[in-house]
Each structure stands twice: as C-alpha cells, then as structure tokens.
C-alpha cells in the first residue's frame, strides 16, 4: 500500500494532496462518525449489530464503491491476506479502479438526467460528451465546488464544452424550471414547496441563459444572453434576483448572474450538507436527511451533529468527495453486519446495522454477466447517429438513459426524467422474480459458462508422442466439491458452509439430472438467493 501511494506522488499535485490527507485523517474522522452514531443509539437504547466478516465486507465494499462483484480470485486473495489494515487498503485500491468512476458517473448521470431522447433530448453526441466529462471529473477527483461551478457557469458548445449540457437537460428552458433543477441537484431541495417569492427570486438568476444553433447538426451553444430577462410570469414585471436565504443580489448588468448565484451556492451550508448527505445515503442506504433530495425545515436530519461534522470535514478538506467516502467506508458504522439482533430488528433509521438493498439494475446484470462470462447487447437505431455499444462493455458504463433493455427497465433503472433519487426503484416485484426464476435470458447465460458448471475438455492421451488428430477432446467434469467452491466464490463471494455443501452434494447425487443440469440448477439457485440479489 505504501508503495502504491509513493507511486502516486509522482503523478500529480492533486493526487498528492488527497493522498496525504487520507493518510492522516480517516482513522480519527471515522471514529468520530462512530461516536456520534453510537451516542444516539445509546440514547435510544438500540444495540448496534456486530461487525461484518471479511467476506461480507469485501463483497459489500466492491458493490458499494465500484458497482462490481469481486471475482473468485479476488475473494480468495482478500480472505487469505494477512495485512493489518486490509480493509482500509482495499478501499484505497478500489478508488483507483476504473469502475469507480464508471459507477459514480452512472449515479451522477441519473441526477443530471443524461438522456438522448425524451424529455431531456440531449441527443447522442452530446450525451457521450457529457457522460465522458462527468466520468473524467470523478476519475481525477475534481473538487466538488469546482464540479458544480463547471456545470452551473459554463458557456459554449454542447459537443465541446460538455458541462453546458446541464442547461439543456431541462424540461423547459426557462428560469423557474432551471432553478428547480439547480436546487434539487445542488441543494437537495424541492422548490415546489417554497414560497412563490423565494422561487421567483432564485429563478431570476437563470433568466439569461441563451441557446443558439450552429451549422453543425444538433450542435447548440449555451451562453449568457444579457438581452434576456426573467419576468414574473403573472405580472410580466422584472424580478430581483434573490438568494434562497432571502438576500437580494446586486451586480452589474453585464455580469452573468449564474456566476453570482454559484459564488453564493458553493459557500452556503446547504451545498456541503446536501452532498455529504447524498454520499451517506449512497453508501448507507438512507440519508441523514431522508429523502436525500428533500431538505426542508420540517424534515430535520436524524443526527444533526453528524451532519455538521461531515459538512465541516468536507469543506476543510477542499471539497474532496473521496475524503467523505473514505471516512464513511472506514467507519465501524459502515462495517456493521446487516444481520439484526433482538434489539434492532425494527430500526431502519438509526444506522444500527447495515441496510440491505437490492442491487441496482445495471449492477445486477453486470454481476450475472461476470459470473456467467456472457455479455448484453445494447444499441439504439434512433435517433441518428445510431449507437451501438460494444458487446463487452459493462452496463454501468451506459452513458445514455435512452439506451436500455427490458431487463434494466424491469429492475427499476431510472428513466432519468426528473433527477429525483427515488426514480431509481429497487423495490422487488413479481415480474423481476419471474425473470430470474424462469427466463430463457438467464437460463442460457448460466448454461454458457461451462467452466462454472465444472466442465472442461480433456485432450485424448498422446500415443507414442503423436497427436491423435481424429479424436475430439472429451468433456470431463471437475469434482462436485471443487465446482461448488468455485460457484460460491464467484456468485456469493465466499466458500459454502458445511450444510450448504451437503445440500448441494445431495442434489448432484439424487436429482436424477445429469451433471451439467444439476450444476446449472445450483448456479440458478444461488443467483436467486437474497444473498446474491441484495447488498448486505
């Protein structure tokens, strides 16, 4: 680990800073998180669950951080590792995986409504540019204030200055609609609950966003248009721009009001609070303020001190998102078992145990593809230019919300219509069950990975050193015990228990199915267990 970090030092100054901070801080800050959570649990008389095992931690942190299942080899290596800080080291390794930025770009593109077709109508080229920009920002850990500033204040071509697409992915290109999206995205607030004056005051910052076409097909320039003005839709009078805290903003007429607003925003308390709360929600399954995009006075944080602490950490670490991930992931609170005890069975809101959540649609199909060594096909023949996604590309890397599949739809992939977190629907349904239990789609995938089913091809023995050309390789099977270990490691990221081993062996022996079919059924069963379908 030390060596890896040293290697990074030469890469660049940004990484250097982030690296040094993380060395010093996570232990202390994580312990502080734990104290704040425990003191609340203590007050409520709720006993926390036990720490989770290494195998559970490994699977959990892979799924939570990179939306990817650990491979059988990765499971073995981690379980065998004797490192004294192996969990913390793993967290650092996962930050550097390319899937980290892919997975979080997926989340961000949900919130930013990145979609070629209705209602965003960004069109394919701009979708690709926008997604690429988001993913790159996350890969190089762009400070979050910078990230917000780029999205909110950029001007230029939708193909060349990708963050301008923020202003194109709105249902209506008009001050009030734009400010509604800005508040939702960067303040975690829903303006439809605001007083009319407050809404209009914020909308007035976004009345000068101009759009113009170019000679290139579907290219569009987003720019500051001083000739436009936001008018009160009822009275047609000009509206004084007011920050959401009520203060009026005064600035010269040639000043882009988007910049004035963003200056205020990034220094505001709500800016830091809403993002640390989102990260907490993403990792813990429930916000300190919940829903994470519903900050309002009558929806107070479950733990005010914790909220303040995280926001302070965030600002004092220069808006470093990974710092927040890091201190949460290294906490005992994050690393608790999902299995409840007698005292915390009904606790859903105080973080006394890890909260189980169904795998996201894209993560689930990717996991199935990884296990079965198969791929999914995605394409869009409309609108032009047609988009074809390479067969081996992961579903978490899909840039365009309009490119989807029946599976992703079925498993609650968000339509990217509104930017609300709740659009991603991970509630179980019977049709989902039907699909996993009984679809040709899944059955064929399982049968395709012969290695997983324990099959291999035996070369016929050589006689006298000569290859026997006419003889085909013969299908052979590994022992059921070995096959079973492999299945468990690649599907459930652990070894089978003694009891499970007995059940499976009995199935091999007594089901009257041939080896291949029996193995298929065991894989099928494991893919249908809750342990597989859920993050736990």
């Amino acid at each position, binding site marked *: 680990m030390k060596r890896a970090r040293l290697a990074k030092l030469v890469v660049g100054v940004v990484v250097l800073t982030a690296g040094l901070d993380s060395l010093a801080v996570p232990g202390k800050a994580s312990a502080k998180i734990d104290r704040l959570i425990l003191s609340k649990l203590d007050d409520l008389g709720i006993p926390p669950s036990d720490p989770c095992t290494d195998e559970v931690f490994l699977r959990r942190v892979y799924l939570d951080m990179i939306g990817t299942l650990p491979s059988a080899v990765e499971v073995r290596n981690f379980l065998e590792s004797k490192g004294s800080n192996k969990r913390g080291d793993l967290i650092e390794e996962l930050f550097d995986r390319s899937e980290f930025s892919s997975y979080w770009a997926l989340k961000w593109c949900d919130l930013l409504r990145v979609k070629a077709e209705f209602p965003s109508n960004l069109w394919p080229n701009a979708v690709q540019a926008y997604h690429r920009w988001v993913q790159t920002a996350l890969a190089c850990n762009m400070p979050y204030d910078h990230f917000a500033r780029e999205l909110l204040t950029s001007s230029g071509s939708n193909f060349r200055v990708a963050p301008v697409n923020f202003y194109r992915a709105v249902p209506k290109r008009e001050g009030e609609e734009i400010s509604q999206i800005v508040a939702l995205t960067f303040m975690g607030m829903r303006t439809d609950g605001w007083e009319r004056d407050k809404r209009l005051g914020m909308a007035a910052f976004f009345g000068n966003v101009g759009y113009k076409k170019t000679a290139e097909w579907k290219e569009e320039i987003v720019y500051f248009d001083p000739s436009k003005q936001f008018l009160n839709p009822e009275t047609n009078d000009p509206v004084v721009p007011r920050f959401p805290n009520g203060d009026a903003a005064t600035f010269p007429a040639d000043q882009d009001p988007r910049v004035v607003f963003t200056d205020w925003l990034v220094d505001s308390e709500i800016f830091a609070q809403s993002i640390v709360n989102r990260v907490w929600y993403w990792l813990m399954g429930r916000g300190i303020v919940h829903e994470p995009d519903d900050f309002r006075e009558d929806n107070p944080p479950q733990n005010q001190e914790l909220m303040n602490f995280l926001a302070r950490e965030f600002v004092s670490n220069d808006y470093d998102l990974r710092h927040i991930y890091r201190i949460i992931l290294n906490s005992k609170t994050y690393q608790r078992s999902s299995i409840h005890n007698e005292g915390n069975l009904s606790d859903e809101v105080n973080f006394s145990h890890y909260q189980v959540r169904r795998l996201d649609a894209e993560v689930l199909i990717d996991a199935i593809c990884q296990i079965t060594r198969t791929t999914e096909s995605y394409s869009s023949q409309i*609108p032009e230019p047609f988009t074809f996604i390479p067969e081996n590309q992961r579903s978490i890397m899909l840039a365009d919300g309009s490119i989807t599949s029946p599976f992703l739809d079925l498993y609650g992939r968000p*339509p990217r*219509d509104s930017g609300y977190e709740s659009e991603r629907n991970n509630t179980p349904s019977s*049709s989902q069950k039907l699909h996993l*239990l*009984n679809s040709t789609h899944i059955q064929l995938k399982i049968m395709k990975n012969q290695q997983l089913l324990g099959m291999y091809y035996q070369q016929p023995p050589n006689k006298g050193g000569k290859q026997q050309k006419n003889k085909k390789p013969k299908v052979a099977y590994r022992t059921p015990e070995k096959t079973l270990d492999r299945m468990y490691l690649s599907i459930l990221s652990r070894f089978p228990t003694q009891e499970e081993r007995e059940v499976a062996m009995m199935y091999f022996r007594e089901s009257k199915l041939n080896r291949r079919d029996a193995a298929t059924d*065991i894989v099928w069963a494991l893919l249908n267990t809750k*342990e597989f379908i859920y993050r736990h």
Partner: protein
Amino acid sequence: MNTQDYINAFGNLTRRDMLRYSAAGIGGLALGSPLQASAVKPGKAKAVIQIWMWGGPSHLDTFDPKPEAGADYCGPYTAPIATNVDGIQICQRLPLLAKQADKYSIIRSMTHGVNGHETASYITQTGRLAGTGDVFPCAGAVVSRFKGVDAGYKGLLPPYIVLTKPQGRFSESGFMGLRYKPFATGGKPSASVFSVEGVVQKGITQARQQERRQLLHDLETYGRKMNGNSSFAKMDRCEEQAYELILGDAGKVFDVKTEDANLRERYGRSDFGASCLIARRLVEQGVPYVTINYGGWDTHKKHFDIMSNKLTELDRGFSTLLEDLADRGLLESTIVWWGGEFGRGPKIQWSAPWNGGRSHFGKCFTHVVAGGGFQGGQVIGASNEKGMEVADRPVYPWDLIGSMYEQLGIDTTAQLPHPQGLDVRVSPTEADGMTFGGRLREIMS
C-alpha cells in the same frame, strides 16, 4: 403505506388475498396508493388492444389515400379500393381491411405538429404536451392504474402487457413509476414455442421446477438469518406469486397451437399476425391493456418496397383481429387503437439520399379506432387535398385518448398518483393551456 397499514385498512385478508392484493400482481410492486371508488366505473370497454405503429406509418398509403394528388404524392398507389362502407376508400394494398371497414372508424385529422419521434411518441401516447416539467404516463399505464390491480384486477397475468419489447423513447409509466410499467414478453411470437420471458421456458419440466424451488429454499442460508426483514418478506411474496404463474395454467394463453389452423393462417404466421392472435387471447383472459409494438414504419428510404411487404402483413393481422373479436362478441368491449407517433410526409422525397422515401409528418396524420363503444364505418375529420393539413375537425391525441378513457369508464378528472403528491388529473383541460378538438362524440355510443 406499509403492509400492516394495508391490512388494517382492509380488515382481515387471507394470506392468498394478501398475495393478490398486495404485491400488486405480476408487474406490480409494493403497494400503490388506494384508488377512489368513484375514479372508475364499469364502462362500455373493458380492454384496449393498441397496435403501435412504431416509427410513424404513412397516412396516404394506409387509410387516407390521395389518388388525385399526383405521382409525387401517391407514388404507385393510385387506385384506392372501395370498402364495405359506401364512400370510404382505403389504400389498394389493404383489401382485407377494406372488408372490415364497418367495424372501425378512421380519424383523418389527427394532429400535433411535432416531427421528432421521441416527443411525438410521448404526445400521441400520453395525450399531453411535452415540456411541462413532468413526464406523464402513457394510456396503457393509466389504464393499468384504473383497471389493473389497484382496481381489483385479480388475474395472474400482468394487467398491461407489451408484445414483445418496451417502446423506449420515453418512460411509459412516467411519474407513476415502475409499478405501472408494461410487462414485456420478449421472445418471438411466431416461433413454435413463444418463450415469454419468465412465464414460458422451453425444456424445464414442472418436476424440475419444483425440485429447483426446493433447492433454492434449502440454500437460502442468509435469507433465513434475516427472518423478519420487511424487504425480504416482500420478496418472498413476489416469489410465491411468480410461482403461481410459472406452475399454473395461466401461461398457456401464449400458446396458440390450440387455435384453429385456418384462423392462425388468416392472422398470418408473421410475428405481427401471431401477436394479434395472442392479444385477442389475452383480452379474453381479462387483461385490460395489450400493446403490440409493431416496428418498421420509419420508412425514410425504400418506402414503397417496404410498404408492399408490410402492408400485406398488417392487412392480414389487423383485419383478422377485428373479425375474430367480433365473432367472439369481444369487439363490443374491446377498443382496438391503431396508429403511430405521426404520419409521413405526403410529398415523396425522390432525390438522394432518400430515393423515394417519406419524412416524418406530425401536422396531419391518421389513427383508427374500433370497438369498445366506438362506432365503426365512419370517417372523422379530413385532411386537405394532398394530405398536408387538417381540413376539417382536428383531433388531438388528448381528444382521442380522453375518449378512450371515457369508454373504459375512467373518470378523466380523477387524480393520478404522483410521487411528490402533486395534484394531477387523468386528462388535461383548457387550464393546461392546450387546444382541444373535442372528444369523439360523433362515434361514441
């Protein structure tokens, strides 16, 4: 509302009832907000079969021929044919549909003016204008809300089924969410075994299904440790429901081999023909909304080559569906709705790169409705002499969809469930800033 609240609200339900009512049947999720009794009453129509002409079919080359407009408009289709209704002519490539014209009415004055697929698809299927800040549900999702599980539908088959793929373009269920999305069958309807994803699987015997299920339960180690977790309890109910469908007879509806061979021939052995037949069978089983997602109508190039094949397929499937529904007494209670997101440019694009293609055309196009209380044998509205503009009685998508809701007994002023609790109604009104042509009173009995 959680399950316990639900039980409290509805008194003692048996476990089986709970299964049916709670997890919202196949295709549903958790619990929907309760439906007010007044929101839906028995209507003339019980079901809708939507033939979605994905891509936008030419109105001139189907139900609104313009032989007088000249070769630049009608291409080779210069001789429209008479139908079994005096004074109504349709394209010469639709001879079988010509014999069923008394069963359907042609709306030749559909309009919304949008030429982009995605926005036009949204408008024609939701009956809403684009750019209102919310994404509204399409007609199928609304019918699923008011005639589906929330309204006491108890079938094992999902209440809103699409053959075979979801439409994409926009989210069918809009802000109402996953619960009201269609169940997409997948598979190939014309194949010897139509593998409906999740329902019909080739080669797994019932005995093996049972054995597998036992194996799954025996290996559910972690699930057992989590006894009492509400999310897992929900999942268990979903599994029980799924197995009712997998192990029961309901899936047989997709097997058309039991149908008369002549009838199957008349429908046509194409995917579209088989889909029409299966749609009839689904409606017979009480499924309230079936969409046949019929692609291939976005004919920018080689338009007439494509049409000469596809019109024959369309003619067989659609005409036989109407006749078959009528023969079984189902047409009275089943709306058949035919149409795409727009029509196609009346003026043929002869030059390269189109070389005889037709463009998108949202200003004036044609839809067809039949059954479910809509009279047949009528023409509503008219396009001008070249099919370029509405000449008489404009019909907007919201006029048509609102009329269908009325026939289904759905109160068009009832509230739709909205995730932020906003007050939104089934159909828009003038207050939404829209122009109306009026519901289709002239053919609503």
